[in-house]
């Protein structure tokens, strides 16, 4: 026991106050005049004793009141371990590693057996809790003395496909220790993977008083090959132009040649031999992927012949579709911009779009709804009917890229976007410096892979009056003079992206710069709705299921084994979904689109390099400094932290104080009444 603010104990000197009142000023009652004391005798002992006893009780109450008040301010505490140990029981947390690596051989079975033995060793007074940390930490049971409950929960555990994290289990130990305010015994059943360690050792910190026992089920680092990653297009438009790159990694391995196979819908597409250096990586390229239209489950496999075959394949999905048509509207006589745009779109690896180029007059009667997006390349004044059609198209969810050049009309707004054009500025070669791109918003999709704009020079640009603080306007790039270069405006359900210069290689040199292709590819993919969907996920990652507008519209997820993974309630309300295991997940979204998500375990689990014994010892030591006094700083934490470990008693002291106050009031009141009675005499 101790005090957190012991200086307040000096206030105990205030006990002198009731001592003064009761002992130094005691019994100075007002004398009652009487005619003669001739017939009175000093035989009053019993009565006075009785009264003194009552006064002494009041005196004791008042002294105790002050003492307790001082005590409450001094904040007494007892070590919570003292409380916990008062009944002699241990508090044990059984942490089972059910990560993907525990599927190796019979590691998980051994871990469960060892945990079962430890649970059976629990005494009647011990309490135990079962947790897993193969992924986010899960409390499988409450803290209980019921061994049968713990054994039952342990028997039901299965290995998962997620990644273990020692930082996560350390956090659980800390939180358990803090919530129970007691010392705990943490028993970990794991395979000691080095990859489970956090970047910072401080994340492994255990609370003082936590005894860590590590049950290890891996005595050496086993060699393991794995398909570490596969880079394949999400959509396939031309099977002849598909490039699939697989990375094969070896952990604790020697030089070896592995056979890598590309499989689509269970059928082998192509196999290649790949030489992998010791503890190294190698990539293999497959240049064809002949898959049928629609969604296809694909896989890259290796014949690793190692002790962990579970990671010898990588799942991915592709969707084959025809290229989508896009409409380019350019000015009569403009041949440059159609050339640059068409050439660029055809050069994209996936060739997702085909470009139809038309003049404004030709496009007036075009059915815009069949186009993935529309490019308005310095088309000049548009016919009213075309402008109206474009407005309807964008409002309905279509997207448009507008490039503004010398055909723009100052004073008139940009078609559909409605942003006013203030003027057209052409750089005077002798007097003015060429404008450059000064600032780009790298979070904007068009710039995700097109970030090198240093060589781009702008000779002519349109001055847009685009308010930066408008909620539906996003200025993605600005020129050196601070004027907007790329502006995105949301119109209705669609978007209009405005480039404040033309794509004709006259107003600027962009079409000849390296950044042109990635910029245009990303922009068109974004406009055409191709670039947003992902096909590959890791176990434990999340996928957004719906937007705000898609509230209460059912979503369906069918997992491996054709199991529906969402309940009826979740299918209409869940905003996201966490992939629980490896496999293909068929997702039917609220907007009717169907996706096939391929989910693979984190390949950090394939590295069976062990944590060094020194590291484990250091980890254990973080919880040892439990017997320090609260004023001192522990090895792993501050004195402030230590306070939380102790059970403070001031609540009880305050409660006692309140009771004493009531008792003192009652007794004091009686004395006052008695005094008043005597005065009346």
């Amino acid at each position, binding site marked *: 026991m101790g005090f957190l603010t012991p200086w307040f104990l000096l206030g105990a000197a205030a006990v002198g106050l009731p001592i003064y009142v009761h002992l130094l000023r005691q019994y100075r*009652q*007002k*004398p*009652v*005049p*009487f*005619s*003669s*004391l*001739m*017939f*009175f*005798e*000093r*035989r*009053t002992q*019993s*009565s*006075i004793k009785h*009264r003194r006893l009552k006064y002494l009780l009041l005196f004791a109450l008042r002294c105790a009141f002050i003492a307790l008040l001082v005590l409450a301010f001094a904040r007494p505490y007892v070590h919570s371990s003292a409380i916990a140990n008062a009944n002699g029981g241990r508090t044990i947390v059984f942490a089972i590693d059910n990560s993907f690596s525990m599927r190796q051989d019979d590691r998980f079975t051994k871990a469960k057996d060892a945990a079962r033995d430890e649970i059976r060793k629990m005494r009647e007074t011990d309490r135990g809790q079962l947790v897993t940390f193969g992924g986010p930490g899960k409390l499988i049971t409450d803290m209980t003395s019921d061994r049968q409950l713990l054994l039952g929960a342990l028997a039901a555990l299965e290995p998962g496909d997620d990644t273990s994290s020692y930082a996560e289990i350390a956090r659980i130990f800390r939180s358990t220790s803090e919530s129970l305010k007691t010392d705990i015994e943490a028993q970990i059943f794991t395979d000691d993977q080095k990859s489970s360690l956090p970047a910072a050792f401080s994340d492994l910190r255990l609370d003082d008083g936590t005894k860590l026992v590590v049950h290890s089920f891996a005595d050496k680092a086993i060699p393991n090959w794995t398909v570490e990653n596969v880079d394949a297009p999400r959509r396939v438009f031309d099977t002849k132009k598909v490039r699939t790159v697989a990375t094969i990694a070896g952990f604790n391995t020697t030089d070896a040649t592995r056979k890598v196979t590309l499989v689509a819908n269970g059928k082998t597409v192509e196999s290649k031999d790949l030489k992998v250096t010791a503890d190294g990586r190698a990539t293999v390229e497959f240049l064809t992927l002949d898959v049928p239209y629609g969604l296809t489950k694909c896989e890259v496999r290796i014949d690793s012949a190692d002790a962990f075959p579970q990671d010898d394949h990588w799942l991915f999905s592709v969707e084959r579709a025809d290229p989508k048509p896009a409409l380019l509207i350019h000015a009569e006589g403009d041949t440059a911009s159609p050339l640059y745009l068409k050439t660029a779109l055809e050069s994209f690896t996936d060739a997702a779009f085909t470009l139809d180029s038309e003049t404004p007059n030709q496009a007036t009667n075009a059915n815009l709804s069949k186009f993935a997006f529309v490019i308005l390349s310095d088309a000049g004044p548009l016919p009213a009917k075309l402008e109206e059609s474009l407005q309807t198209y964008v409002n309905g969810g279509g997207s448009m890229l507008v490039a503004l050049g010398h055909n723009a009309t100052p004073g008139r707004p940009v078609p559909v976007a409605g942003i006013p054009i203030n003027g057209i500025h052409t750089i005077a070669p002798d007097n003015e410096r060429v404008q450059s791109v000064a600032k780009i918003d790298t979070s904007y999709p068009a710039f995700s892979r097109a970030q090198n704009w240093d060589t781009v020079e702008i000779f002519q640009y349109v001055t847009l009056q685009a308010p930066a603080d408008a909620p539906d306007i996003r200025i993605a790039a600005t020129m050196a003079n601070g004027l907007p270069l790329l502006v995105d405006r949301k119109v209705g359900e669609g978007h209009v992206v405005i480039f404040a210069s033309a794509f004709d290689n006259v107003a600027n040199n962009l079409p000849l710069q390296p950044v042109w292709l990635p910029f245009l590819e990303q922009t068109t993919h974004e406009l055409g709705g191709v670039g947003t969907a992902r096909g590959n996920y890791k176990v434990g990652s999340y996928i957004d299921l719906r937007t705000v507008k898609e509230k209460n519209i059912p979503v369906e997820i069918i997992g491996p084994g054709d199991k529906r993974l969402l309940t009826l309630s979740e299918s209409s309300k869940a905003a996201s979904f966490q992939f629980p295991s490896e496999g293909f997940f068929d997702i039917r979204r609220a907007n009717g689109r169907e996706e096939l998500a391929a989910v693979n375990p984190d390949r950090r689990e394939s590295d069976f390099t062990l944590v060094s014994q020194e590291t484990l010892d250091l980890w254990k030591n973080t919880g040892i400094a439990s017997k320090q006094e609260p004023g001192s700083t522990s090895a792993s934490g501050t004195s402030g932290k230590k306070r939380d470990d102790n059970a403070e008693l001031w609540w009880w002291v305050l409660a006692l104080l309140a009771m004493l106050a009531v008792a003192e009031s009652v007794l004091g009141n009686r004395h006052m009444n*008695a005094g008043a*009675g*005597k005065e009346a*005499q």
Partner: protein
Amino acid sequence: MMQRFLDPAVLASISSLDLVAKTVVDGFVAGLHRSPTFGFSQEFAEYRQYSEGDDLRHVDWNVYARSDRIYIKRFKGETNSQLLILLDTSASMTYKSSGVSKLDYARYIAASLCYLSSQQRDATGLIVFDDDVKNYVAPSTRQGQLMRLFHAIDKAEGGTRTDFAKPFAHFQQFLRRRGIVIVLSDFYDDPKRIASVIEPLRYHGNEVVLLHLLDPNELAPKFKGPVLLQDIEDESALEVSPDYARNEYRDKISHHISEMGDKAAASGLEYVFMDTSKPLDSALRNYLAIRQRRR
């Protein structure tokens, strides 16, 4: 109706002492008409046969003419008694639990007796004392004597402690004629000592009456709890338990009263006990009843 005005507490509200005395005595006399067996004279007239040396001015010549015997008429002269009132004004007499103090009660009694006596043409005097003689009004029948007495009684205030020995030794020089001596006191002293001090007064042929005044709270004190009592006279203090006051004290005060009566009787002194909560006429009636018995 008149009884109500004889309540000491009611009388205390009357500031004029002569009015108090008249009220008491008139009320008391009015009550006597309904009780013919009681007489209120202190002495009755008599004829004494002339003896040598008697003043011839007192011979009743009418009797001599009828009976040829010479008698001395003593009705106006010799039968007139001298009344001397000794009023104790010690501090203990100022005690009161409620209503009037013992001193006020004694003053009313004294004033009433003075008034009664003056009605009978008796010479009345007053000695006010505590541990010494504080005031003295010589007995007289002169005009204005009653007012002087009232004035002296009115001025009597609580003094210090009681000491009977010194003032009573002093009284001897004032008693030229024998008469009635009435002592009004609470007699907080040893009864034997009181009797021994007062008894010499009787040797001069005086009739001595002790009027013992006590407050009801002195007779039966009621304390709810332990209390610190302070003696009014010597200011000594004593813690007293209610049990003691309820039992042993009452026994002692009762014993003191009865011993006072016994010692007074043994010394030939009249003794009348008066409770200051009782009406004044009953106090006077008690006194006169005793006087009647002596007759």
